[in-house]
């Protein structure tokens, strides 16, 4: 599903964010990427989503060589990916429904279909009652779950989460992780960048540890998990 071969990433200005990364993540895997701030966790996710382009090496996502994905095709490519952020990045002038519906509206779904799917996604994160609220009226944990619903509503093949639990207390973080696990169980490949090592270890999934742009350790495999 995701294969990195000798991948280097230099940001303009010479800052080397990733060095010689080799990794393979199978379809349906759930993988944690950890490491200190600046170790390259976010960069790894950004390369997968084509937010940044890698400098050297080869990345193949879902059978597609990313070098061959032209700028025009990037939007279509991204429709197979769901995103989660630490700061939620919800649109504050839109209701919860409209926020969650965004990926479906972008993909051009019909209204009835959108309503059905948004309701299903919100039901999954137990926020069906907040469908007409605005994000500001929700607690941090609820906003986070709206973000989860938005990330999976279009049934992406890959879910990328960048520090999804950064602002949550341990109990809520745990709930969010369990939610990811549920999506993973229905076949979504899940990549979570996080520095919350205690929790990651409790989830007993594959862990990739980065340090200054290199893979330091590679513990656990999908088969072990």
């Amino acid at each position, binding site marked *: 599903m995701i294969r990195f071969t000798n991948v280097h990433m230099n940001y303009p200005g010479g800052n080397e964010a990733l060095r010689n990364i080799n990794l393979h993540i199978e379809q349906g895997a759930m993988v944690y990427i950890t490491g200190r701030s600046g170790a390259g966790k976010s960069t790894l996710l950004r390369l997968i*989503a084509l*937010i940044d382009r890698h400098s050297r090496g080869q990345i193949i996502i879902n059978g597609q060589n990313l070098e061959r994905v032209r700028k025009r095709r990037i*939007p*279509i*490519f*991204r*429709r197979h*990916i769901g*995103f989660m952020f630490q700061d939620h*990045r919800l*649109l504050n*002038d839109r209701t919860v429904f409209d926020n969650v519906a*965004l*990926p479906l*509206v*972008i*993909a*051009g779904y*019909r209204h009835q279909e959108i309503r059905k799917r948004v309701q299903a996604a919100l039901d999954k994160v137990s926020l069906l009652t907040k469908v007409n609220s605005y994000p500001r009226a929700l607690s941090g944990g609820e906003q986070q779950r709206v973000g989860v619903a*938005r990330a999976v509503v*279009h049934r992406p093949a890959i879910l990328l989460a960048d520090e999804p639990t950064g602002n949550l207390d341990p109990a809520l973080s745990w709930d969010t992780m369990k939610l990811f696990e549920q999506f993973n169980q229905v076949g979504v490949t899940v990549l979570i960048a996080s520095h919350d090592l205690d929790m990651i270890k409790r989830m007993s999934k594959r862990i990739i540890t980065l340090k200054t742009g290199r893979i330091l350790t590679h513990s656990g495999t999908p088969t072990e998990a």
Partner: protein
Amino acid sequence: MKQVNRKKNTRPNKTFNSELKRRFDMWLLQHAQAFIFSLGQYIKHPISNILTTAVIGISLALPASFYLLLDNVRYASSSWDGSVQITLFLQTDVDESHAAEFANILSSDSNIRETVLIKRDDALAEYQKLSGFSEALNTLDENPLPNVVLVKPSLDSTDEAETEALIKQLEAMPEVDSAQYDSRWLKRLLYLLDIVNRLIVILSTLLAIAVLLIIGNTIRLSIHNRRSEIEITKLFGGTDSFIQRPFLYSGLWYGVFGGIIAWLLITISMQMLHGPVKQLANLYASNFQLIGLGFGNSVILLASGIALGLFGSWIAVKRHLRAIEPV
């Protein structure tokens, strides 16, 4: 049930066509969404949008009303022929048949396009009718008016010197008592109108640029304000055309509402001027009436508003939207 039937009918023969139709439906749907969404955005921020639209409306109304004014002046002066006309007052001893012969000879001159003979009796009758002095004129023993020949030169009417030469030549003829060439002021008016016309073209261009800048800047601000939304939309696979669509439609709305405001301003002004102008025209025994915008010009006004709105927002979108990439 219906849907199932339709699928069954279309699927076997033309999957390509149904795919095309699906895409077209999607395209139409997304346009409808952007259309309504941008209107919703417009209504959501009424004060700032109404102010912007009012500025656009006034900028459109100014050149439009000047054109209208020019139209009206042209219309009012259209009863006077644009070309030069020379009035020849013949000697009183030239009788009607002689005058007709003289007019005929003149019209064969290559410098003269047309001559019209006004017989002295006809002139008197018309004068009696129009002046209101009929009683007084009846007391005259003899018609005091001479025969008159109106001469329209075939010369280029803008060439003063040639016209002057022709007048001198005509005045020298024995039948002619005096020649009058009093349309100089009319020509001055026409020249003046020409200058005014140019000025209006310049003014319209400047105001059109102003409208473009206003709309462009407004759209630029709204792109800036919705930066995070644009980033998220790009992250979830929104294409450039998907993202720019609502902004283009906002430009359209500014144009439409600006055009409507301009139309209202002009129509109300015309209504206010209508009465006084009619009273003035009555004093001059004229049945002149102000020409309003009419259907055609209203359409042009609205269309210019829409065109400027779309173009202004297009410029802003091209300049600023591409620069925003997800971070």
